[in-house]
């Protein structure tokens, strides 16, 4: 590396590529928050910036953790988050018609959010410990199903369909990568398709409305379809180059609802256009490609499985959020990670990135050492 002669070795050893990608993504988010607040660091950009820097530093700190620490912490983290989920269910704070938060005073903690990376780690650990020969047996399935089912059930009770689906998705990806028989997944997929009408019957009214509006958003453009309609207007009116920074009428005049959280991508694209949106998508693609690459090179089975799961988790966030704001998926309330305002989402994603950076570090410290742990 050219810089290695100038910068001290510890600094040069940092995974600069991913740090720059994360900084770029977060920077775009903070710039958009500054704009949606009408050109002001209050009330979002400054707080988001501080949280972002803090958790980024924490993630870099995490990258120095050896893998065995992570392995040791995983069951503890799972148990802790699970307890918090029960706690939130028991004495949950009422907000937005759903019980999701524990108010810590300085921030609202959303335990379900932390379940997304933790479920990946715990499943990765489980399949690392499981003898490979047992993969086709039932004991490869039921403990994992229990580990996933219990928290997903609690999250559904909140009710928070979006997060429940995110947790489930990450879990399924880890199980798939662990090598469970393919027919589990094909069969499961078909079963889900068949069960969709049934699921619809059990949905809350507001969730049903969202599904119906997703199917036909123009049916009620001023009512429940308002979010998606206005979001598409914001994106579509941006054009190739956008309306220019601080010139987005949809977000500045508050036609775009939630322009600082779930619909921040629309607010950004309105001002930066197709070009800005594509740059952001490419930045995420770079981040995800890096994550998958870490999985490919990881020494341990735990590292491989965890890396794929954590990366897929980020992919799920980005994919569903972008589909939602562009009218390709129902409005499920999933933020755009690292970009949307909100502490919990930044924390979980950064936590995942921290773990990924730790694996990355091990790979780079001992590039040629084959996996020996199992």
């Amino acid at each position, binding site marked *: 590396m050219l810089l290695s002669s100038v910068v001290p070795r510890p600094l040069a050893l940092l995974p600069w590529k991913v740090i720059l990608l994360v900084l770029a993504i977060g920077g775009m988010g903070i710039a958009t928050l500054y704009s949606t607040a009408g050109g002001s660091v209050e009330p979002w950009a400054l707080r988001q910036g501080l949280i972002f820097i803090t958790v980024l530093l924490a993630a870099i700190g995490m990258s120095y953790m050896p893998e065995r620490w992570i392995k040791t912490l995983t069951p503890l983290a799972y148990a802790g988050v699970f307890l918090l989920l029960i706690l939130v269910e028991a004495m949950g704070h009422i907000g937005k018609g759903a019980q999701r938060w524990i108010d810590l005073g300085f921030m609202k903690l959303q335990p379900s959010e932390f379940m997304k990376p933790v479920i990946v780690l715990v499943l990765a650990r489980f399949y690392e410990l499981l003898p490979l020969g047992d993969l086709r047996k039932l004991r490869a399935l039921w403990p994992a199903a229990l580990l996933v089912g219990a928290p997903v059930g609690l999250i559904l009770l909140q009710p928070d369909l979006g997060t429940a689906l995110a947790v489930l998705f990450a879990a399924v990806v880890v199980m*798939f*990568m662990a090598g469970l028989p393919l027919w589990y997944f094909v069969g499961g997929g078909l079963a889900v398709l068949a069960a969709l009408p049934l699921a619809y019957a059990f949905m809350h009214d507001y969730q049903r409305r969202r599904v119906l509006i997703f199917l036909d958003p123009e049916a009620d453009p001023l009512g429940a379809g308002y979010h998606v309609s206005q979001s598409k207007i914001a*994106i*579509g009116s941006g054009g190739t180059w956008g309306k220019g920074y601080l010139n987005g009428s*949809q977000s500045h005049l*508050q036609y775009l609802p939630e322009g600082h959280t779930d619909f921040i991508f629309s607010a950004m694209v309105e001002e930066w256009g197709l070009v800005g949106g*594509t740059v952001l998508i490419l930045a995420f693609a770079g981040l995800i490609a890096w994550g998958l690459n870490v*999985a490919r090179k990881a020494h341990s089975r735990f590292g491989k499985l965890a890396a794929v799961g954590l990366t897929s988790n980020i992919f799920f966030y980005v994919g569903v959020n*972008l589909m939602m704001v562009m009218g390709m998926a129902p409005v499920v309330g999933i933020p755009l990670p690292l970009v949307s305002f909100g502490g919990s989402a930044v924390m979980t994603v950064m936590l995942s990135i921290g773990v990924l950076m730790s694996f990355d570090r091990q790979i780079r410290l001992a590039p040629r050492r084959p996996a020996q742990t199992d």
Partner: protein
Amino acid sequence: MKRRPLRITKTMQRQTFSRRMMLVGGIQATFGGLLVARLGYLSVSQNQYYRTLAEDNRVQMIIVPPRRGWIVDRHGKPIAINRSDFRVDFIPDQAPEDQIDTILDKVGALLELDPDTMERIRAEVASKTGYQPVQLAENVPFDRYAAVTVRLPELPGVQPMRGFSRYYPAGPAVGHLVGYVGAASREEYVAEEKNPLLVTPGFKIGKEGLEEVLEQDLRGQPGGQRVEVTARGKLVRELEPKPDRSGETVQLALDAGLHEYAARRMGLESGACVVLDCLTGEILCIASMPAYDPNSFSDGIGRTEWRLLTENERRPLVNKTLNALYPPGSTVKPMVALALQKHGVDPTERVNCPGGYQLGNRFFRCLGRHGPVDMNRAIAKSCNTYFYSMGHRVGYENIAPMAHYLGLGETFDLPVVSQSYGTVPDPDWKLRKFDQKWTSADTLNASIGQGYMILNPIQLAVMAGRIASGRLIQPKLIGVHPKPAPLLDIPKEHLDVVRGGMWQVVNGDGTAGASRLPFPDIQMGGKTGTAQVRRISGGQRGQGGEWKYRDHGLFVGFAPVSSPRFSVSVVIEHGMGGSRAAAPVARDVLTYLFDRELAMRNLEAMEANWGGSLAERTEQFQRQVLAVSEANA
């Protein structure tokens, strides 16, 4: 045994992992591509569509109503114009929410608004969103307007403005012709797909007559102050205003001076006067009196005035030129004479008039004992016996087509809200209508314009015009049309006989000898008519008694006889006789066309006896309305 499957599984597992890794990565990459494609679709190919929607969101328009187009006569003289006035509006979104009540109280006191109006304003203020104004008052007197203007700093949201109100200089004289304007009703708003212009304060829509029919021409394009507003309706900044475009000026064929003269000349009578250019069919005058004052309607008519208008037995709300039907009486005799000639009656053939005509055991009376009369004399003296006898010979089924050919019982292609057909009876019609056979008695009655026959004044004017010029004129109201109409399919000799008779009516020893034009070189031809309103026994014949049972007076005519240019029809309701009531009006109206000053002098002398000019009497009426409404209050 135990290690073999394990090793195999491990290798297999590594392969599986790589394969599945490819799959997961591939799916994710595909998804990324899909997202970028969708983004491109929305922001590039759908850009125009969404940009329009974003612009619709961002920009709201405070509509400024366009100025309504003028209506002018053939010489460019204004018939309907706009007068600037003062108005005060209120934009709720410009005032702090907690102060709206106090502001409305203050401005209401300054403008002296009554409690009903205040209630309406409060209801509207509560329902308006998105920076739309609410009307507080229009037609504000200057002192109150000034009072609001100087206190403007303490009245946020209050908007004193210059507005425009419709003004008709001739007042009631043009009432039925032009109609009036008023605020759009809920039905009209819905009918125009909720066009926001229609509910803009100060905007008026045509409600009757030409104002209604020509609405789309007169309206123009609204402009407006464009403002940028937030989703909650708060003003961000003002953008470049969009200029409005005034409505088009519509020119009528009408001669406004003549029209107003005719309206005034009818004085206290109830009636109608139509003057046509008998070469081209242009309507020069289409006056119906008495009439409402369209200026009162434009300001929003009061309940008392409306009641007085509807209760008046002279029906000031009915346009008597188009929508009132009268038995034409003897005015149709020239038309009958043309039909007789067409069916072989020699105009020189004489019929002896012993004072009536015996049909079976019934005796049909004539107004006099005319002795032997030919066609010419029969028209001049309005001898019923001649037309009974000849009509009976030819049959009415042969006369009715001539009536239609000359415009009777027809409607014309005119820009009016409605016009009545009337009735030209014939055997088929009677069978259809009453399921009865046509009798000879019906023929006799129809031959002298009585019985089932009812017509409106414009049809009579068209008939007179077609006979006078020998041209198939169609009445025209909009625009100037100098091109003469095509000739009628009637021999000139036939027409000359009839015109000669009509010349004698006025200039010989005929029925309208008292109504000659006051010029040595210009003569008028015509035909009087007296139509019974109901059968009265004995010799009384509706020549006195209660007003509404008196005979109608009618007259049709043309001038100059030497080279006919104008045709006229006059109906004076319950005027007791054509020669007595209608012919003098026709004489004076035609006099106006040839010598304005002479005609005006005569009129002013007459108006002195009627309690003032039309304008003065309209003012009197307004004072009466005020007195009645104050007495009721």
